[in-house]
């Protein structure tokens, strides 16, 4: 049975040496996680919601291969790959929101957990928001420190800039008549200038030109306080939220005078439709006040104020030639009816030239800003951060998420952000003419695809859990952790199937990232480590044969075979259920078997001939190559192609993930592997020595590729080298993401579709091939 090397690969097991145990901060989702390590606090006390921000650190385990233990130097068939876990402290920002009426309990909780450790003296607190005056004494009493008050607008702007820069799909448009109602925007390369309209009690309109520069260009007194105050007078409602509930049920047409009420139809000459409100509350001037129901009045008032704010904001946007308006403040609080009314007004008054935008984490702006103002020495803004899906609560119609409770009855919302290891930015070779989105399909829009993918990932959880346990077979508690991780993911998938917009657009990428983040959160930093090491060893042994085979071919045939090689290698992907089944199955499955599975030409997308034509011309200056799986994919598929490029005089930047995801190649694994390959291949060795082959990390930790968040030093390298070809390999990077991405330079997208359902939606069968060579300005895909 053991006649295939692949099966031997399966036999190799790693033996993790746990250097030290770490206490998991992630046992359960609870209030004020990581409070003990908290360093800085900020608090934003609003009339109804309070937000607390703090900086903390979490312990992460990372897999580390000790230097000098290059696992395969002796080319033994079976060996144990030794590795250790390295514990590192990663900075994390925590943001929590809860109703202001529970502020006392929350401060008590902080006091108990911090004062108990005598730590409070070293911390300090920044405060903003209307309540920061009112509760100043309480904070002082509870925590023994006087909060430093920060200007509300400064905080708001800082918070907005921070979120827009760091959280992908933070901003969204809202349209009640669209399905889904929410559309989250991909991060663009340009953030400034924009208009921020903050609708608190009154309205402030701010023009933001850069990180440092903003200006209050106007405002109006007709704001949230008007809705609240006037609404309470008119309806007797108990509070803001009740008013909103009333407005949901009401019919403003019974209170407002419409164009139709005056004209018996449209006002044709001016193009005013009959439904348009001609005079807000106009009907109330003629009839007895008893004729109006509270819900109708509340809705009319909501529309009156939302329309007015929309119109005034729009006038300022037009005056300052700004195309984007972000809305913040408690009046909106991402309430659908309010967003609908404000959006309608902006689109109407600007004739669709100005885009009304809302923020997923709008409620946290002030707290984030206040936090940032107090922590310049932590250089928070110099780093890139990313939303931790595992530790953040979803965005549910603007309401607080009630799935987490503290201590028993307070419903709270969370946002956690992890610091990226290196600053990230926008991939420089993307076409500036086409809006970039890192997702090919929005599952929130496509119910069938959503149902399929959620159940597909649910179905893969057992295997993922098994892998996770196997990877820490000798670590105590790993089974329990893995099962809790699985439970967490199942819950999340259930949430997402009901609320697909809870974390931005629902996409295959967001689902894959959720799985990866959860595994890390539950301390399974690299379940595939041993697997990858074993496959790399196996593939290395086949490397010479592969090169000999290629070198026996004519140049033209070799170029064809090289592409077949990348594709065959790409079949070896543990993220694909179909492949995992083959690899785990009883039959032999190697490189040649994989090649045999591939679709015959013409492929689903087949630009091979044009690619071959291109190769006859001048060699590329520098190729930026985003690799996918480790093992056979990288060693037998990617490297021979890279070698050919190098032989032809091109320079190559090999880009791999910074952190593990599935069995994808990571930078840390790639570097020693290239050293080993160099021992077998002079071309690669020389290129490494001469700096023509440049391994680099992408800054990513996902099986996908988000080109809006690429490591800054990689960006600089690509620009310095003047890269003129991008190669993106694999289903996660070239299909789920970036299939429709357009570039300034030539691009070659190579992938095998290892999922029958996806292949079918694209018009093919499982193991269909996408080989898309695209030139700038002529993006046709054969």
């Amino acid at each position, binding site marked *: 049975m053991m006649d295939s090397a692949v099966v031997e690969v399966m036999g190799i097991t790693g033996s993790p040496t746990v250097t030290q145990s770490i206490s998991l901060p992630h046992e359960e989702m609870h209030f004020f996680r990581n409070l003990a390590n908290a360093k800085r606090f900020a608090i934003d006390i609003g*009339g109804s919601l309070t937000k607390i921000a703090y900086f903390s650190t979490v312990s992460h385990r990372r897999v580390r291969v000790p230097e000098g233990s290059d696992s395969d130097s002796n080319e033994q068939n079976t060996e144990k790959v030794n590795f250790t876990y390295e514990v590192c402290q990663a900075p994390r920002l925590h943001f929590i929101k809860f109703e202001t009426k529970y502020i006392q309990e929350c401060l008590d909780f902080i006091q108990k957990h911090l004062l108990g450790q005598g730590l409070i003296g070293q911390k300090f607190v920044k405060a903003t928001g*209307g309540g920061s005056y009112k509760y100043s004494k309480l904070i002082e009493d509870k925590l023994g420190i006087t909060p430093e008050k920060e*200007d509300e607008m400064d905080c708001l702007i800082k918070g907005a800039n921070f979120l827009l820069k760091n959280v992908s799909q933070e901003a969204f448009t809202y349209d009640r008549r669209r399905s889904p109602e929410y559309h989250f925007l991909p991060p663009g390369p340009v953030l400034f200038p924009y208009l921020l309209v903050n609708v*608190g*009690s*009154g309205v*402030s309109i701010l023009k933001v030109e850069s990180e440092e520069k903003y200006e*209050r260009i*106007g405002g*109006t*007194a*007709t*704001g*949230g*306080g*008007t809705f*609240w*105050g*006037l609404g*309470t*007078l*008119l309806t007797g409602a108990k509070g*803001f939220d009740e008013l909103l509930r009333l407005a949901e049920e009401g019919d403003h047409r019974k209170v*407002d*005078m419409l*164009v139709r*009420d*005056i*004209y*018996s*139809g449209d*006002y044709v*000459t*001016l*193009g*005013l439709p009959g439904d*348009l*409100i*001609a*005079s*807000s*509350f*106009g*009907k*109330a*001037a*003629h009839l007895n*006040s008893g004729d*109006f129901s509270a819900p109708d009045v509340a809705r009319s008032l909501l529309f*009156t104020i939302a*329309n*007015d704010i929309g*119109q*005034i904001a729009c*006038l300022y946007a*037009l*005056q300052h030639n700004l195309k984007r308006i972000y809305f913040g403040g408690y009046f909106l609080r991402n309430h659908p009816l309010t967003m609908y009314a404000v959006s309608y007004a902006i689109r*109407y*008054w600007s*004739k669709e030239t100005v885009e009304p935008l809302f923020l997923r984490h709008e409620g946290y702006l002030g707290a984030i800003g206040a936090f940032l103002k107090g922590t310049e020495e932590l250089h928070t803004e110099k780093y890139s951060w990313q939303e931790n899906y595992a530790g953040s609560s979803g965005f549910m119609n603007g309401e607080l998420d009630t799935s987490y409770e503290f201590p028993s009855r307070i419903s709270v919302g969370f946002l956690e952000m992890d610091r990226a290891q290196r600053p990230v930015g926008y991939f420089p070779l993307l076409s500036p003419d086409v809006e970039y989105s890192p997702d090919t399909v929005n599952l929130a829009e496509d119910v069938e695809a959503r149902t399929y993918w959620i159940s597909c990932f649910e179905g893969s959880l057992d295997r993922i859990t098994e892998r996770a346990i196997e990877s820490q077979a000798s670590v105590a508690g790993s089974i329990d952790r893995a099962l809790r991780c699985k439970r967490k993911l199942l819950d999340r998938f259930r949430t997402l199937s009901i609320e697909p917009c809870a974390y931005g657009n629902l996409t295959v990428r967001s689902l894959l990232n959720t799985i990866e983040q959860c595994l890390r959160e539950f301390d399974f930093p690299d379940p595939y480590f041993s697997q990858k090491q074993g496959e790399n060893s196996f593939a290395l042994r086949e490397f010479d044969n592969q090169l000999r085979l290629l070198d026996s071919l004519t140049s033209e045939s070799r170029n064809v075979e090289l592409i077949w090689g990348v594709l065959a290698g790409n079949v070896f992907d543990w993220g694909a259920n179909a492949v995992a089944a083959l690899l785990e199955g009883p039959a032999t499955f190697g490189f040649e078997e994989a090649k045999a599975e591939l679709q015959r030409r013409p492929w689903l997308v087949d630009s091979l001939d044009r690619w071959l034509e291109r190769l006859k011309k001048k060699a590329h200056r520098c190729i930026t190559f985003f690799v996918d799986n480790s093992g056979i994919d990288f060693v037998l598929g990617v490297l021979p192609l890279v070698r050919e490029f190098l032989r032809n005089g091109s320079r190559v930047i090999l880009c791999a993930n910074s952190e593990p995801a599935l069995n994808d190649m990571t930078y840390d694994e790639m570097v020693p592997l290239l050293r080993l390959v160099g021992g077998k291949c002079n071309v690669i060795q020389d290129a490494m020595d001469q700096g023509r082959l440049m391994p680099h990390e992408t800054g990513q930790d996902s099986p996908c590729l988000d080109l809006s968040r690429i490591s800054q030093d990689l960006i600089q390298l690509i620009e310095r080298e003047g890269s003129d070809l991008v190669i993106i390999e694999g289903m996660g990077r070239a299909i789920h993401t970036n299939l429709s991405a357009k570039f300034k330079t030539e691009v070659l997208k190579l992938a095998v579709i290892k999922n029958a359902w996806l292949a079918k939606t694209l018009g093919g069968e499982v193991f269909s091939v996408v080989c898309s060579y695209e030139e700038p300005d002529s993006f046709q895909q054969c």
Partner: protein
Amino acid sequence: MSTEKNGSSNSTTISRRNFSTSEKSEIPPMPWFGMDIGGTLTKLVYFEPTDITPDEADMEVETLKNIRRYLTKNSAYGNTGRRDSHLQMNDVYIGGRKGILHFIRFPTSKMATFLDLAKSKGMATLASTVCATGGGAYKFENQFLQEVNLKLHKFDELDSTISGMEFIDAHNHCECFYWANPKDDSRCEKVPFDFSDPYPFMVVNVGSGVSMLVVTGPGKYRRVTGTSLGGGTFLGLCCLLTGCSSFEEAIQLAANGDNTCVDKLVKDIYGGDYEKFGLHGDLVASSFGQMNSKDRRASVTKEDLARATLVTITNNIGSIARMCAVNEEISRVVFIGNFLRVNTISMKLLSYAMDYWSSGSLKALFLEHEGYFGAVGCLLELMRNA
């Protein structure tokens, strides 16, 4: 929303010249009315000829005389109809005739009463034409025909407003005025303004709703925007908040109220000025912003609420008008419409706000015949369409 609309020369460049005696043969039969049926108020302009020759008087039917007598001898019609005798214009020449322009108004909701009255005065026997504008010209078209045999010639609301303004301003040398020292009650005064070289200017017509127009030359204008927060909103909210039942009552309440008990001022939030942004402490930060407090609600008066409503609506109109004027690069803004009737509070507030927020570069102007321009424009149109 702005609608580019150049009024055709025949409908908007109306001047005395067009109605010279040479056209006398073409003039329509009396009585001459112009009517503007708005969402809240109906405005009626009646031309009373004062140059009736004895021959003409002999030929005149009794009904016509009765109507003239009824309209000119009374200043109140039924419970709700009113003639604004202080606005009456003597010795006006229209259609080659000399006469008096009378300005009459009644609530549009009492249209049925008006039609009954017109019927009882025998209007139906005259089989005449009335030029009408406003939404009601469409809404009540059939009723006019059925009840009083009156054919409504419908004319565009904005066209007629502009032509009415031009006509009245040309015939009444003290039509246009502004408020000097609007913030200072002791020094505040109404000052005539020479509007003989008006273009370009902006018109803010505040009826039930608000329309804002930019006028660049005789009969040349464009609607740049509007808002639904207008006079109807003020009155509607006041009715709901105070139980009042008329505009006059609402204004009277407002005159005796104090909005600072209702609104949240900048100093209520920041303890003084918001210096960082140059916002004075006395500025309203949030209209009705104090009213989310139960205690404050308990102590507030009807008068305070009416005042706050008036201030809210007025300031809002002012800021939209100001922004439009800035965007259109126009320095004179003429406020018209019946919202301003007996409403010096709003006029002074607008005057102050336009001046303050523009650092003196914008001027708020007002016209004596506030809300009647649409009806006047219609009367002029009747002359053209006879």
